[in-house]
C-alpha cells in the first residue's frame, strides 16, 4: 500500500499556510524561507520544501516532492542515499550523501534542493512528515490547509475520490488526474480546472525514468564482458601469429 496526497487546484487560494506549517514542522528558518520566496523563481529551496506557485491568472498550485512510484532520484543516487520507503514516501539519508547533486539533475520535477548557503551542505526535500504520519497523523501541510485543497490517504482511495469529483463536476474540472500515469505514476495527485502544464512540469511522459535507463544500465556487464573478451582475444591471436612468424613479442621485450 502506498500513501498519497490529492491536491485540488480549484480550491487553493494561495494563502501559503501549508508552507508556514511545513517550515515549522521541519524546523527550517522562517526568515530564510521568506527570503527565498521573494528571490527564487519558483520559491522552492532547501529552506522551503514546499511552495505555492501562481498559475496564470488566478489559480495556485502547491508544489513539493511528487513521491514518484518509480523515483528517478532513487535510481540516480550512487550511494543509495535516497530510498522509496514501504509506505510510499521517498526519503533521504544524509549520512550516506556525498553531495554530488545527481539527484537534482535526475528529478524530472526539479524537487531536490541544495543547502547552498551552508559550508557543510545537504540536500533537502519533502519527506511527507515522517514524525507525524508514523503516529497515524497527517503531514503538516494537510493539517494547515483550511480550504480543503489537500487530502491525505491511500493512493488508491485518493484516485477514487479524484474520479468522483471529476464525475460530479464535469464542467468545472479538466478531465484528467495529473500524477496517475506521469513518469510511471506519482503519490501526489492533482486535479484542476486549468491546464497544469503551466506548473512547468513535464506531464506528457508516462514512462518512468528508471524504466527508460534500466535497459541501458543492464547492458553494462555485457559491454564490459565483450570488450574484455574481444580485446584479450585479439591480443592473443596477434601475439600467436607473431610468435609463429618468429618475431619475439614486443610486449615482453620493451617499447623501443
Amino acid at each position: 500500500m502506498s500513501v498519497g496526497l490529492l491536491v485540488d487546484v480549484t480550491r487553493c487560494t494561495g494563502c501559503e499556510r501549508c508552507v508556514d506549517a511545513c517550515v515549522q514542522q521541519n524546523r527550517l528558518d522562517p526568515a530564510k524561507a521568506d527570503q527565498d520566496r521573494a528571490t527564487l523563481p519558483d520559491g522552492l529551496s532547501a529552506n522551503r520544501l514546499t511552495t505555492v506557485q501562481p498559475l496564470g491568472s488566478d489559480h495556485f498550485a502547491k508544489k513539493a516532492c511528487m513521491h514518484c512510484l518509480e523515483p528517478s532520484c532513487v535510481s540516480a543516487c550512487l550511494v543509495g542515499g535516497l530510498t522509496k520507503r514501504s509506505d510510499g514516501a521517498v526519503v533521504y539519508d544524509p549520512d550516506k550523501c556525498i553531495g554530488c547533486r545527481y539527484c537534482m539533475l535526475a528529478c524530472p520535477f526539479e524537487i531536490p534542493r541544495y543547502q547552498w548557503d551552508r559550508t557543510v551542505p545537504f540536500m533537502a526535500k519533502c519527506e511527507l512528515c515522517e514524525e507525524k504520519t508514523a503516529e497515524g497523523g497527517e503531514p503538516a501541510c494537510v493539517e494547515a490547509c483550511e480550504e480543503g485543497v489537500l487530502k491525505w490517504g491511500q493512493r488508491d482511495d485518493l484516485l477514487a475520490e479524484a474520479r468522483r469529483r471529476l464525475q460530479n463536476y464535469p464542467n468545472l474540472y479538466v478531465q484528467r488526474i495529473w500524477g496517475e500515469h506521469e513518469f510511471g505514476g506519482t503519490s501526489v495527485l492533482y486535479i484542476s480546472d486549468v491546464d497544469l502544464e503551466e506548473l512547468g512540469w513535464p506531464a506528457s511522459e508516462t514512462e518512468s525514468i528508471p524504466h527508460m535507463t534500466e535497459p541501458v544500465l543492464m547492458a553494462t556487464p555485457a559491454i564490459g564482458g565483450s570488450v574484455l573478451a574481444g580485446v584479450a582475444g585479439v591480443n592473443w591471436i596477434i601475439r600467436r601469429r607473431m610468435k609463429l612468424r618468429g618475431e619475439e613479442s614486443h610486449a615482453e621485450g620493451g617499447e623501443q
Partner: protein
Amino acid sequence: MNPTDRTRRVKDILWALAFPGAVAMVFRFAFGLGATTNLTDGVPWGLWKIFNMVAGAALATSGFTVGFLGHVLHLKRFRPLVKPAIVVAFLGYGSSLFALLFDIGLPWRFWHPFVYWNHHSFLFEVFWCVSFYFLITFLELSPTLLERLGLEKLRGTLHKAGGVFVIIGITLSSLHHTSLGSLFLVTPQRLHELWFSPIVSLLFIVSAIGGGMMVLLLAKVLYARWYDPDKLFYPRTASGELCETCVNPDENGKGLPEPPHRPQIRALATASAMVLGVYFLLKLGDLLLRPDAWSALLAGTWESWLYGVELLLGVALPVVLVSIKRVRYSTGGLTTAAVFAAGGLALNRMNVGIFGYFRGAEEVYFPSGLEWAITVGVLAMAGLAWFFLVENFTVFDERWKVRASASPRLLSSFDRLTYLWNHRLLNGMERITLIGLVVVPVAWILLYSPYYRDKGEEVFPPLARDVERDTLLLDGNRFNMATTFAHAAHQQRLGGRESCSECHHLTLPADQATPCNQCHTRMEGRTAIFDHARHAEHVARDKRLTGLVPANLSCTECHGEDAAKARSTAKGCLKCHEEDMHPVDPPAARLALEQASGYRSAMHGTCIPCHKQKAVEVDNPHLGDCATCHPGRTAPGEDLVRAVVVNSEDLAAVH
C-alpha cells in the same frame, strides 16, 4: 635557446595560474559551495564537474586507445607513444578527480560509493570505473617511475603485467566513457533536444576516442617544440640553420623531406580522423533520425549555433584537414587539426553538461571567478606535473639520463623550488617567489568578493509611471506580482497636498517622504528598526548627562528605575515622540515602531481597512474586495472574488 630557457617562461605562467587556484581552494573549503560558485538549484552541475571531470576524462582517453593500438594490435608505429599516452591519462584522470573533490558537497566522504552501493546508478558505475582506471594508469606508469628509482626487480614484475593492465584499462575505459554519456539519459525533459540523444553513450565514447588521440598529438608537438625540435620540425644543420635538403622520405618513398617523428603524429592524426569521421556520421544520423532535434537545429537559436560550431569546427574541420595531404605532411597543419578536434570535444561536453540545461532551467549559469580559478589552477598544476614527469623519466626520450649523471638528485631539475635548495638565490626561485608574492594577495582580493554577493531579498520603492506620481506600480520585489495604484486620484479625494499623513504614517522623526522600503525592507518578514544605541546617545546628549560614557546613564529615561532593563519595561515610543511622529494606527504603535512589518502586509494594512470603511460610507460593498485592486474574476460556482496576480510587463503594454 636551450630547452630550459624555452620552458621556463611557460612554467612561470603555469605557477602564476596555479597560485590563484590554491587560494580559491582555501575559499571553497572555508565558505562552502554556495558562496564560492554560481551554481543554483536550476543548474546544479557546473564547470568543475562538466569541464574538469566529464571533458577532462574525454580528453585523456589516449591512455587506453594508444595502449590498444600499440600493445594489443602491436602496431609498431604507436609503440613510442604509449608512455606519453599513459602520462596524459594519469594526469588527466588525476586532475579530474582532484577537481571533483572541490565540487562534491562533502568531499571527505569521497569513499562512500565504495561502501554504500547502488548498482542502479550510472554515477555509481562511473565512479567505480574511473577510480579503478586511475589506479590502472598509475600501475602502468609505475615501471617508468621505478626505472629512475633503480628498483629493477619490482619494475620488471610490473612491466610483465603491463599487458594485463592494458586490457583491464581498455575494459574499464569503454565502460565509464559510455556511462558518462548515459548520465545525461536521466534528464529527457531538461536537456535540450539537440543533445539529448538515445545514443548519447555511443556518441560519448566514439568522440572521446577520436579527440583523445589529438590531445596526445598536442603533447608530443609541445614536447618536441620545447625540448627536441629536430624530431618534429625540420632538422637543423650544425650551424643551427634549417636544413631543407635533409630528406627523410616517408614510408611510401614519396621523397618529401620529413622530420623523423612526424610519421608518429601523422599516424595518430589519421587514426583520430577516421574515428572522428565515424563520429560525424553517427552525429548526422542521430540528427536526421530525430525530427525534434532537426527542427531545433533549424530554429536558429543560440543552441543551434553552438551545435553547428561543435560539429563543423570541432569534428568536420579536423577530419577535412587531416584528409588533405599537404596538411598531413606538415607539423603545423596536424597541430591545427588537433587543436580544433580537442576544442570541439571539450565544447561538446560543455554543451551536453551545461549549455544544454539553460533553456530547461530558464536561467543562465556563468562560472564565478573562484570556479574559473580552481579549474584553471588544477590544469596548471597538471601541466607542471607533466613537465616534472617528462623531464625526469623516460616518457618521450631518455634525455633525463644526461642530467641525472650530472646531478644525481631526483628533483634536481624540477623547477625553481629545488633549484633554490641546490643553488641559493638563483634567479629562478626569486622569480617564483615573486610570482607567489604578487599573485596570491591579488587572487585573494579578487576572489574574495563573490562571498559578499548580496543574495538577500530587496524591496524597491514603487515604480512611478510619471513624474507627477499619477499612477504608481506597486511591485516591491520586482516579482511581477504587482498592482497599479492611482496615487494622484487618492490624494485628491483625501484632501490634496495636506493629506499625506492619511496614508503615510510618517513614523520617522521629521519624516516627509521617506520611501516605504527604507524600513519595510523585506517582502514577507519583519525588520527590526529600533536603534537602541542611537536612542541612548541621543538621550544622553539631550539631558546633558556627564561621565565616562554618558549614554550608559540614560537607561532610566526609558526603562523604570528598579525594573529589569528589558523591552517589556521600557516606555512606549510615543511618550517622547508624540509631536514628531504620526503613526497611522496608534494602539498598535508600540510594536509597529520597533519592527517594520513586511512590505506586503504594510501595503495591505494601509489600503484594506480604509477601503472597508469607505465601502460602508459610500455603500459600495465591493470596494473592500481583493478584486478592487487586483483585477480578478469570480470562480465558477463560488462567490469568492480572488486576487489576481498582474504581470507588470502586461501593465506596461496597456499603458
